[in-house]
């Protein structure tokens, strides 16, 4: 355990306790601290030193396959807890540390589209959110300014007003080739919108096109929230305690949250009290903690009178097609995530055989190891020896991939529960997933695969190959403490406040009602920003136990 920054609050003077130092945790912490609240954040992980990232190392791929793997069951760092995914079609990715999973995200920064908030109204399935795109729009803009988002404004997939503050990153030759194919088919596309600086800002460098975003940005250009938000939060007076694993949110006899019990790295149990508790531990960690916080008053888990805590787990299934070309495309150049992207197929067209849609992106395939990994479904004899040499010599620098991220609709029986047998290194029950990809999602994947092949061919690809990343694709952990107006069918309201425990909040991806098809972090942080602002403005009416 270590304290960070000058602030040090006691149980008597602390106003807010936040669990989790990832994007939603630090964003809300900063807003509240700048509004005068004394905020403490508990984080089970540590700071990550930019110099430790494998991104510039020659053995990067081997490190990413092990100690830097996004799957905590493979990485097994002291800050990690295992996830029982034996009964899940998809394995979860996350990073436990200051900045959370943004340390390893690709920094694609799309907003949800307006219809994502109205799925029940428009498509007759799932539920509507208790807020609209228009409600979030000013907060999307605010977060873009805070962390430095780059892109080209005016994206035709969005209502007017979407205008990133920094100019876009280069789309590269792969972007040009992909764009020509999209134009031939009459499909919408757009230069990438990234949580990556295209120009230096403060002590963060501009993008240097390493294309290793997913193993940590060595320039600090990527807006991992340790470098993009935490310095301002600490300057605003936030106290951060690392190496602190929350094991229970505690409650008073009146049913109000009183703080949290946590365990330091030496195994010593501690307690931090606060009149307001905000849980920002991601779509797996948050339902785990709420279920760990059961008591005689809350026998099914804290804030779970609806029975929706840990239900409706959503993760984005991904379909990918590798394409190779005759021309040199410099496909080792970044950014790694979405040099160009498309929302052509994001809206429902029931003639396709499924509801809702997909976001498309291209990605470079930087080097020979990545090429051979993309072709791993071939028999080893066909990708090693003379055959392996031929593949690499033909494709190196001349390939990229198109991916479709499919909207994953909520299924009540896709769950996060507490494992009855297995525990983490502190003896705390680990989360157990039950997740079956729906038939509708599978149909959507198959439909998109066929279209991705077509667009590669329209761009001039001479070889295409479906890449099956399953089950290693669980980046986006959503829906397990969803928001809503009805306490019977939701856990928190549209500002993240628990229906059952009025001084308990959830601000992370757990609150998602539906998953959209886009990467969620911009929406998670816009939600947290709006919710924290609302909390600050209404603090005078806040019920507290103290």
């Amino acid at each position: 355990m270590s304290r960070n920054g000058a602030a040090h609050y006691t149980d008597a003077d602390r106003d807010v306790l936040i669990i989790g130092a990832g994007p939603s945790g630090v964003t809300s912490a900063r807003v509240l601290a700048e509004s005068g609240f004394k905020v403490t954040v508990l984080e089970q992980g540590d700071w990550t030193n930019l110099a430790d990232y494998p991104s510039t190392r020659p053995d990067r791929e081997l490190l990413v396959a092990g100690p830097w793997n996004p799957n905590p069951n493979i990485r097994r760092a002291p800050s990690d807890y295992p996830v029982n995914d034996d009964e899940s079609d998809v394995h979860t990715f996350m990073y436990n540390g200051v900045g959370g999973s943004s340390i390893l995200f690709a920094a694609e920064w799309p907003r949800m589209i307006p219809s994502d908030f109205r799925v029940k109204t428009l498509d007759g399935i799932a539920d509507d959110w208790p807020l609209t795109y228009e409600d979030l729009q000013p907060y999307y803009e605010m977060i873009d300014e805070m962390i430095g988002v780059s892109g080209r404004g005016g994206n035709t997939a969005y209502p007017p007003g979407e205008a990133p503050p920094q100019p876009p990153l280069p789309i590269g030759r792969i972007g040009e080739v992909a764009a020509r194919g999209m134009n031939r088919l009459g499909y919408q596309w757009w230069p990438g919108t990234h949580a990556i600086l295209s120009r230096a800002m403060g002590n963060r460098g501009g993008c240097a096109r390493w294309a290793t975003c997913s193993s940590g940005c060595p320039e600090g250009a990527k807006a991992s929230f340790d470098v993009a938000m935490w310095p301002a939060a600490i300057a605003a007076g936030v106290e951060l305690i690392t190496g602190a694993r929350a094991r229970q949110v505690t409650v008073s006899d009146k049913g109000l949250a009183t703080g949290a019990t946590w365990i330091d790295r030496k195994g010593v149990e501690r307690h931090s009290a606060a009149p307001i508790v905000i849980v920002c531990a991601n779509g797996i960690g948050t339902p785990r903690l709420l279920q760990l916080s059961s008591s005689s008053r809350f026998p099914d888990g804290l804030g779970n009178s609806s029975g929706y805590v840990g239900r409706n787990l959503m993760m984005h299934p991904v379909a990918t097609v590798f394409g190779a070309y005759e021309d040199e495309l410099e496909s080792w150049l970044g950014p790694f995530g979405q040099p160009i992207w498309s929302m052509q197929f994001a809206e429902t067209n029931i003639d396709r055989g499924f509801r809702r849609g997909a976001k498309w992106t291209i990605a470079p395939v930087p080097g020979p190891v990545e090429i051979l990994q993309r072709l791993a479904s071939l028999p080893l004899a066909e990708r090693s020896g003379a055959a392996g040499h031929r593949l690499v010599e033909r494709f190196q620098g001349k390939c990229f991939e198109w991916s479709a991220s499919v909207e994953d609709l909520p299924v009540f029986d896709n769950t996060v529960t507490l494992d009855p047998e297995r525990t983490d290194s502190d003896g705390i029950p680990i989360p157990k997933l039950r997740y079956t990809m729906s038939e509708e999602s599978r149909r959507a994947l198959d439909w998109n695969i066929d279209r991705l092949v077509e667009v590669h061919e329209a761009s001039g690809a001479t070889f295409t190959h479906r890449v099956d990343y399953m089950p290693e694709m669980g980046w986006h952990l959503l829906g397990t403490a969803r928001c809503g107006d009805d306490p019977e069918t939701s856990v928190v309201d549209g500002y993240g406040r628990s229906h059952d425990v009025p001084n308990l909040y959830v601000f992370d991806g757990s609150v998602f009602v539906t998953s959209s098809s886009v990467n969620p972090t911009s929406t998670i942080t816009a939600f947290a920003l709006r919710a924290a602002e609302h909390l600050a403005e209404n603090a005078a009416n806040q019920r507290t136990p103290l």
Partner: protein
Amino acid sequence: MTVTVNVSLTGRARLGAIRLADLWFPGSAVSPAMTALPEYAALLDVALAANAELTAAFLEIAERAADVAELTAQTLENWPADVVEGAYTVAMCAYYMSKAVRTAIGYPGQQRVPAARDIGNPALIEELLAPVLARGALYVATPALQ
């Protein structure tokens, strides 16, 4: 978070590693053979130090490779596939760390290319975007919240 794995290859494993290298990366008209690389042993040491789980797989397969009379692709098909894949990953990463190999295949490696110095061709991007802009907005407007 990076843990260095201390590995010393036994004589048997060293022999098996050479056999695997000759099978998997024999060289071509373009690419040098793995075992012909002057830095072969050093690259393998770097790879073996990076990832304990894959290193264990490599050592297991290398020792088995040393014990067979002849090592072929068919031989490997009868061994545990996931362990063979782990061993192949180590050898592949070691081989493609070589600057000589990268030069031969035209791969500069991941490197700094500041975006601010390479803004691409904005005029070309606008030209490419013209038909997208001409088609107009794509999103479905939603009814106001009740």
